[in-house]
């Protein structure tokens, strides 16, 4: 994929483009850990955190209202039984995928360039899953009974309906959340120990000490660590594909034109990776600037991520083409109408905006100049963030609003509470993310150290 991939696989020293010049073990450790251990918190952090925290409280307000007054505060109706709730659920879940892909698949593929971005990408995954998980839990009519979706022994002697994709969702998402959390946490342990050792703050020493679970960096520890990481990576790898495939089955299993499509699983997975990388870029570009991390998250990284985005974006574009083709090729009246409705129905604007964002805007990524310009990349990533939200809007709302019987057709619009929840989860996500970058190393210190030529030599020698 990258021109340097062959070099990586041969275990050669990495080109300087993946890490700034003049770094040693000490400078890397110092640079990354100082962000966490510094007593001074930057002003921008407080400002952003304040805004994010405010929006998180909007989320809490929405949730309280929703539980006490009813799901009708949101916009769904009959025929459009799902709206912002499931759009946002799929959007957040999709975003999470980049983290898992980076940490698992790229690890197995020995794409060492991932090492500077995997930590915060994984954190992003976790927080995105946390946001995503709120929606299906709260969008039910009686959220206090959500536990009925789990197969637990009960006096009613009732099992959930294993034929329902929503049950598959329960398993897929909960597995995904658990494995992602474990992977992230296991990856953090060596760095937590570094922080424990370097912290001058007694509270920090205790907390990091507890969290690092007695890591001493012995060879035995490293051996077990490597094994655990590999195993977790192997566990996560199928999840990259399975989670969003199963989310896509929520739609593909149904009979609704616009949902009932066999292309959905691969198309959703590609879309998820696409959206995820866009979000990683959205977070990485400001971060590297604010914390002066250009040495670690280099233009090469941005370039690589842009390439992944372009590739997955093209798959997504292919998905759109297949949808349109199948609508015609199926010969089904309803499928054909569904596509025409997307093109020219009451929601046509959202479809064309989606094409603009997800198909046209990313064509800029063919140009190296765009791929290596953080500002332009940020713009493209924003297009993709919006585009992937619109994609779910088109799939869910536009398909449901006009299905089989024209008598039942109806329009949908998100209410202020829908927006409250969406903005609220954005605030929740940012709150968690800001806490993460303040209190945990956002770049893996020990993995960055392995990228220095010194470590490579030692590896070589060890092998020899």
């Amino acid at each position, binding site marked *: 994929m990258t021109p340097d991939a062959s070099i990586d696989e041969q275990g050669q020293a990495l080109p300087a483009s993946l890490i700034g010049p003049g770094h040693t073990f000490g400078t890397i450790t110092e640079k990354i850990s100082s962000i966490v251990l510094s007593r001074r918190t930057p002003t921008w952090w407080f400002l952003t955190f304040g805004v994010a925290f405010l929006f998180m409280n909007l989320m809490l307000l929405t949730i309280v209202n929703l539980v006490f*007054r*009813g*799901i*009708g505060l949101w*916009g*769904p*109706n*009959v*025929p*459009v*039984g*799902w709206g912002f709730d499931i759009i946002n659920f799929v959007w957040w879940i999709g975003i999470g995928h980049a983290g898992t892909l980076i940490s698992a698949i790229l690890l197995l593929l020995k794409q060492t360039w991932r090492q500077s971005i995997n930590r915060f990408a994984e954190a992003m995954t976790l927080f995105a899953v946390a946001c995503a998980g709120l929606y*299906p839990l709260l*969008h*039910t*009519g*009686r*959220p206090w*009974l*959500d536990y*009925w*979706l789990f197969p637990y022994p009960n006096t009613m002697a*009732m*099992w*959930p*309906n294993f*034929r*329902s*994709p*929503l*049950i598959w969702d*329960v398993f897929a998402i909960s597995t995904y959340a658990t494995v992602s959390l474990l992977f992230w946490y296991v990856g953090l342990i060596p760095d937590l120990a570094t922080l424990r050792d370097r912290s001058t703050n007694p509270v920090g020493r205790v907390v990091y000490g507890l969290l690092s679970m007695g890591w001493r960096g012995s060879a035995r520890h490293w051996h077990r660590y490597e094994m655990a990481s590999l195993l977790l990576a192997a566990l996560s790898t199928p999840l990259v594909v399975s989670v969003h495939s199963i989310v896509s089955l*929520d739609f593909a*299993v*149904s*009979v*609704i034109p616009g949902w009932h499509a066999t292309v959905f699983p691969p198309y959703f997975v590609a879309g998820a990776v696409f959206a995820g990388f866009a979000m990683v870029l959205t977070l990485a570009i400001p971060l590297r600037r604010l914390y002066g991390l250009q040495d670690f998250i280099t233009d090469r990284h941005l370039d690589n991520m842009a390439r992944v985005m372009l590739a997955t974006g093209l798959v997504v574009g292919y998905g759109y083409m297949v949808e349109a083709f199948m609508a015609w090729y199926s010969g089904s*009246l*309803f499928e054909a*109408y569904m596509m025409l409705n997307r093109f020219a129905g009451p929601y046509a604007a959202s479809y064309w905006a989606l094409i603009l964002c997800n198909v046209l805007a990313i064509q800029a990524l063919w140009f190296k100049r765009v791929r290596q310009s953080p500002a332009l990349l940020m713009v493209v990533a924003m297009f993709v963030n919006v585009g992937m939200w619109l994609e779910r809007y088109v799939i869910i709302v536009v398909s*449901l609003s006009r*299905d*089989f*019987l*024209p*008598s*039942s*057709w*109806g*329009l*949908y619009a998100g209410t202020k509470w829908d927006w409250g929840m969406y903005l609220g989860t954005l605030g929740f996500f940012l709150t968690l993310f800001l806490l993460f970058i303040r209190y945990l190393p956002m770049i893996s210190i020990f993995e960055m150290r392995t990228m220095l030529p010194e470590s490579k030599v030692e590896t070589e020698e060890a092998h020899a």
Partner: protein
Amino acid sequence: MSEPTPSPSIDLAAIRRRLEGAHGPALWRSLDELAQAPEFAEFLEHEFPRQAAAIHTAVDRRDFLKLMSASLGLAGLSACTKQPEELIVPYVRQPEGLVLGLATSYATAMPLGGYGVGLLAESHEYRPTKVEGNPDHPSSLGGTDASIQGSVLGLYDPDRSKTILSAGQIRPWSAFLDAVTAMRTGQAAKGGAGLRILTGTVTSPTLAAQLGELLRQMPQARWCQWEADGRDTVRAGARLAFGGDTPPQAVYDFDKATVGLILDADVGQEGPGRLRYARDIARARRVERGDRKLRLYAIESFPSPTGSVAEHRLPVRSSDVEALARAIAAAAGLRVRPIDAPVVKQHQAFVKAVGADLRRAGSSAVVVAGHGQPAAVHALAHALNEALGAVGTTVRLSEPVEAGPTDELASLRELVAEMRGGKVDCLVMLGVNPVLTAPVDLEFGKALEQVPLRLHLGLYNDETATLCHWHVPETHYLESWSDVRGHDGVVTILQPLIAPLYDGRTAHEVVAAVAGTSGRSSYELVRDHWKTVRATADDATWAQWLQDGIVPDTAAAPVDVRVRGDWDTTPLPAALPPDQLELIFRQDPYLHDGRFANNGWLQELPKPLTKITWANPVFLAPATAERLGVQNKQVVELAVDGRSVRGPVWIVPGQARGSVVVHFGQGRRHGGELARGHGFDAFALRTMAGLHVAAGATVTPTGDITAVACTQDHQSMEGRPLVRRGTLGQWRAHPDFAQHETHVPTADESMFPPWEYSGHTWGMAIDLTACTGCMACVAACVAENNIAVVGKEQILRGREMHWLRVDRYFGGSLDAPEIFAQPVPCMQCENAPCEVVCPVNATVHSSEGLNDMVYNRCVGTRYCSNNCPYKVRRFNYFLFQDWQTETFKMARNPDVTVRSRGVMEKCTYCVQRIEEVRARAKREQRPIKDGEIVTACQQACPSEAIVFGDLNDPQSRVAALRKDPRSYNLLAELNTRPRTTYLAAVTNPNPDLAKEA
């Protein structure tokens, strides 16, 4: 409390010793107490300082009793008020005829516009919860309409007037009697010269006799009648045609007709015989009649349910109907003076074809004119029926059913003139609301204020009640003893299903009070009247009448009269210029003249064909809207004769170009919470001259847009074969014409063998030939299944809760479209898409094929609704049910779960009725008979379009209909295998006109 100090060690041995020495049941609180520790004593003192002395001293018996009684007294204080002593007694012996949990039916009738429809009211533990048509009653034959279904909720309406009011003060009945007696003494002296009684149209024999008696006592008094949507034109037309003071009335036998011409009449929806006519028309339109199948021609200004199923429907302005009717009559061979109007030239072919067809049909033809048409059109219809020889076959002429047929408008006008002239000392208004409903140019309210004593009897504290000195709450018909006549004169005795919920009185009691014979109950008044009329009727006969719901031999006597030769001599109306707008006043299809405006069920029921709820827009034809440059929902100012109202536009395909149609009954100022604030008051435009049609209306667009809650926005079927309709010719050539519209997957396309249904397997068939889209089924479903009212805001959000809906589609041209109606309940699919996707198994298939919804189990993911191709599932987005209002609790059907917030619900095929019949059959140790289980929609349907039964029973009607070649499945290509199937509509168009098209 401060930190607990460790208590000194307790001498357990000492305690044991002391306890051994004590006698009786020694009670102790703690070891500390037993140890008589000083700490404990101190603690007690701190805790209860005032009682410390009592605690320390030994308690003697006397003090103990004092303390105990004080404690008990104090405990009683916490209850605040002393509850009155009320004895409750369980049923030691169950009352005869009552089995708790089993509903009983009582025959009664619902009076509306003076005429009654015989009903069977279902009573659960003495609470009426549902009404059905009485199959023995000629005006119903078992069918009901939406207003009748909604009337049950009216009984429990919390906004009903509850007390006798005088000048805003609650007064007892005796005070009212005193006031009436004082008035009566004054009036008796002058022969009642200042006494006027205003009622609606009256057919009640008892009330008529009472009024007659009163008028005999006070010959100078007068009795006036006023119905807002009255039948003055019908009576005037009969008078014009037949002459005489009490001209006959016509009753139609559509089931004997082969060709029908409907002149701007909504025969199945309006008028005393509506339900009977709907049924007869449906029967006459059955495919099995072959060449004798009724062919309908409808000339109408506004699409009506019956008109929508007419083979040939001509939308023309109401003002143009007479010209067309005359031309058709001429073409049918009747000598009439023509009106030279452009509309006749425009529809030459139609006129000729209809005329010829009527002539061909001869005595099996029938011509009906609507009450919005002038007297001349009614006279013409009579003349044409007679000329065709239809009188005696499809038309029966009989004595008038009404007790005092009169020109109601004239009587009201005279009354108002007298009121203005100060000649009226006392006006008694019985069950009417003339302040709202009288023509606006009469200014009834202003005239009323000049009457020194104004008495009002009404269900609501309405516009009229607020202007009266005395308002007496009226009993609902389900609380009343009374009697009423049906469209053909058959009398039904109204028997109450429940004691009056409030301090209500019947019109009989008030009239008796005015006549000075108070003291007798309504029951006695009605019973005594019938004792005098039918001297031979003993108690057993009376009981039989009550049980049957009809009094035998009371049908109006047939009369043998001929149309006068010179009926057609009145001046002909000038044709309305084609570019002029006419304003048509119609009563609201469910709220009537506003009397049901406070009924949530009826407010929320989508209007037939337009599907509007909670409002009365200004209806315009597409061409008219185009010419005026107005859009749906745009607020316009509608003006006629210098008066104006504002309302949103609603464009109705198939409405006549140049007609503006408004429904009156909305926009109330008083009369309940729901009555107020919805729509506009069309009465504000309605004058004596333009009672039904006013010429020269203007529509001025304003810049405002307002929300109109419509439950079906889309009008076209988009080329999908949803409602399938063919002609008689097509049906003859290919009886299964409806079955080859789509690919129907066969059963062997599944990997799994089909489920074997060894017992019952339920199914429903809906005949689209019969269905007119009148919405009675939906109203019945609401009443039967405790369906919540959600309000306009939620309807606008698309959250109406109706389990059954009637889809309406238009086809063909915008101006004269074909109109299709299709009731859509749950299809109870064999391969139900909803069942697989529910994560918690809340919707499952029953062993008898029903798609059951388990409310308790539902968590509300709404996936089932999304995946339902028919979109028949409804979700409780909020707590839509009213759990607070006490009276609504009584209105609910106890056999149906009341759903709460957050659960999905849907049509169950009235599973409670299935189970009820199953239990009965089991008790009687016999199989369930076909037709024994009747769903609510099926029972209400006046057109008998819905058939329910066991598909496993080869003898069942539904099994036979399933095998009918016309039978088809909606969306069969999805392989959902619905249990609800449709029978394609078959029409019988006139070949001459079909060629034209």
